[in-house]
């Protein structure tokens, strides 16, 4: 729409409308400035030798020394590798499942049953990892665990799966899915309620089967939500739940189990004199997250004709 074609009355109304929105946004912007942007100055300690008594401003600059130290450690590289693997597998496997679950749940016609499934599916979200982890141990226990009981039943021999390095990533993935499937599907269920009922009726009249309706009506209807969720998720690629790793990791799987967050914890970096190095690690996570978000956002915009991005 060319600006010249607007009447002056309409333009002044537009401007008033903009001012209203800016004014409305002001408290939100102030909150962000105070609680996010002011403390953000603390990031500079990634390039300092931070001493608590001297404070952030008084500590010495050390340039990239903290990064040089990090990259000299073999376990740091291993932690990066493990985190990327776990993050990717969560993005690839754990992200689509709640969508699928929401779609299938939406096809349940008995309303009461649907509500029941929905309510139970999100219960694991309320069990903290320290308890959920205990249940994972219980399930996998070589002595009494259900999994090993089944294996013995079919003639196999029991193994302590939680103590075997090559299974650890899978255990993390499965327990993650179990804990978050129902909860993550809530957004998609809410999005599905927004799909125009008339489209279903039309599709039905056109003779579309169930899968065609899902494919041609429901999925396009929640396409933008999926895109936005994927973009937000991708920014978290290096943030595998610390509490989950903390409870599941053990001496036998230190090589495949250590994530960046656990690395920071194990090295004691988030305490006393090591805040600088911990901040250096988190800055890496932020920058990787930023690139992931920019990348997925661009890709998503291209795929959805500019609608599916977050900007």
């Amino acid at each position, binding site marked *: 729409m060319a600006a010249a074609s607007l009447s002056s009355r309409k333009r002044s109304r537009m401007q008033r*409308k*903009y001012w*209203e*929105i800016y004014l*409305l*946004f002001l*408290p*939100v*912007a102030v*909150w*962000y400035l105070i*609680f*996010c942007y*002011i*403390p*953000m*100055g*603390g*990031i500079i300690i990634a390039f300092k030798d931070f001493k*608590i008594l001297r404070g952030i401003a008084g500590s010495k600059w050390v340039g990239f020394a903290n990064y040089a130290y990090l990259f000299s450690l073999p376990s740091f590289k291993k932690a990066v590798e493990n985190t990327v693997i776990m993050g990717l597998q969560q993005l690839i496997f754990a992200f689509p499942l709640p969508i699928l*679950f929401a779609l*299938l749940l939406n*096809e*349940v*016609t008995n309303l009461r049953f649907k509500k029941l*499934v*929905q*309510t139970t*599916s999100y*219960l694991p979200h*309320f*069990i*903290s990892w320290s*308890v959920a982890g205990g*249940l994972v141990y219980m399930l996998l226990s070589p002595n*009494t665990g259900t999994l090993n*009981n089944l294996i013995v039943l079919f003639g196999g021999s029991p193994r302590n799966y939680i103590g075997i390095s090559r299974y650890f990533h899978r255990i993390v993935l499965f327990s993650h899915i*179990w804990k978050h*499937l*129902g909860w993550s599907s*809530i957004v998609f269920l*809410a999005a*599905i*309620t*927004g799909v*125009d*009922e008339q489209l279903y009726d039309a599709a039905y009249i056109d003779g579309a089967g*169930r899968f065609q309706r899902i494919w041609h009506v429901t999925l396009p209807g929640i396409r933008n*939500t999926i895109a*936005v969720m994927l973009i*937000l998720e991708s*920014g978290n690629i290096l943030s595998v739940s610390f509490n989950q790793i903390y409870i599941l990791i053990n001496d036998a799987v230190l090589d495949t189990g250590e994530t960046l967050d656990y690395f920071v914890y194990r090295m004691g970096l988030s305490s006393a004199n090591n*805040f600088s190095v911990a*901040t250096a690690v*988190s*800055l890496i996570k*932020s920058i990787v997250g*930023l690139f992931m978000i920019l990348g997925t956002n661009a890709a998503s915009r291209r795929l959805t004709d500019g609608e599916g991005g*977050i*900007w």
Partner: protein
Amino acid sequence: MVKWHAMSRSERVFRVFNTCLMILIMVIMIYPFWYVLVCSFSSLSHIQNTTFILWPDGLHLESYQQVFRNELVPNAYLNTLFITIVGTSLSILLTIIGAFCLSRRSLPGHNLMTAFVVFTMLFNGGLIPTYLLVRELKMINTLWSVIVPTAINTYNMIIMRNFFSAVPQELEEAATIDGANQRQYLLRILLPLSGASIATITLFYAVDYWNAYFYSLIYITKRQLLPMQAILRQVLMTTEIETIMYDAAVQTLPSEMLKDAMIVVTALPIICLYPFIQRYFVKGVMVGSLKG
């Protein structure tokens, strides 16, 4: 509804498959909570000697009595309630405003505003500067310290914005022609249409506030001000602390059942919130109002 015998074969197969799958998921999802619930009512020897616990061996209420004998618990409940109710209200207010502004795609500077917000999801200054800020604002040892600094969850705001964007453009144009200003459009048209999304985000905030313990352990040192989750966390952690000390804390070590009872007492109220919110997920709310 279509009658069973009138369905096509593939339709029947799908229904049977889908129902079975849903039941399976239900069982897998419900077991952990069921386990905790059952253990909280069981005796110690029952838990120790049963491989696969399905039922409690009677109704042992000792753990619950012990939970409520803790003088911090009633206060902690009130603190949690305050944090959840006040926090969620504040958060929803700010989030709706923010999401509404961000959903105006025609607004000059729209992308800049979005970037301004999204950037904070990725970069943060870390614990010390935030602590100093909260301290400077005189919020240490107040319940505000666990509400105000986390009032906006950008993630939720973006989701909300996405829901707002999905509302047809024609509505706004129609409202503008009728002479409604932006605030009127938000209050009279957009909000009534966004039942499901507001319910979702309310749920997210309420559950987050209810479950939060991390900041309360950092900003609050007065025990009377701690929320339930922080108390639960302390109970859970006490077992670990034993290894640091000379193992003198013999009887204060929490038993399994006490832990389980704590979890039930802490989680149950917020779980009960969901069914109330669920009615907003009923299909056709938005469409219906659009037609009307």
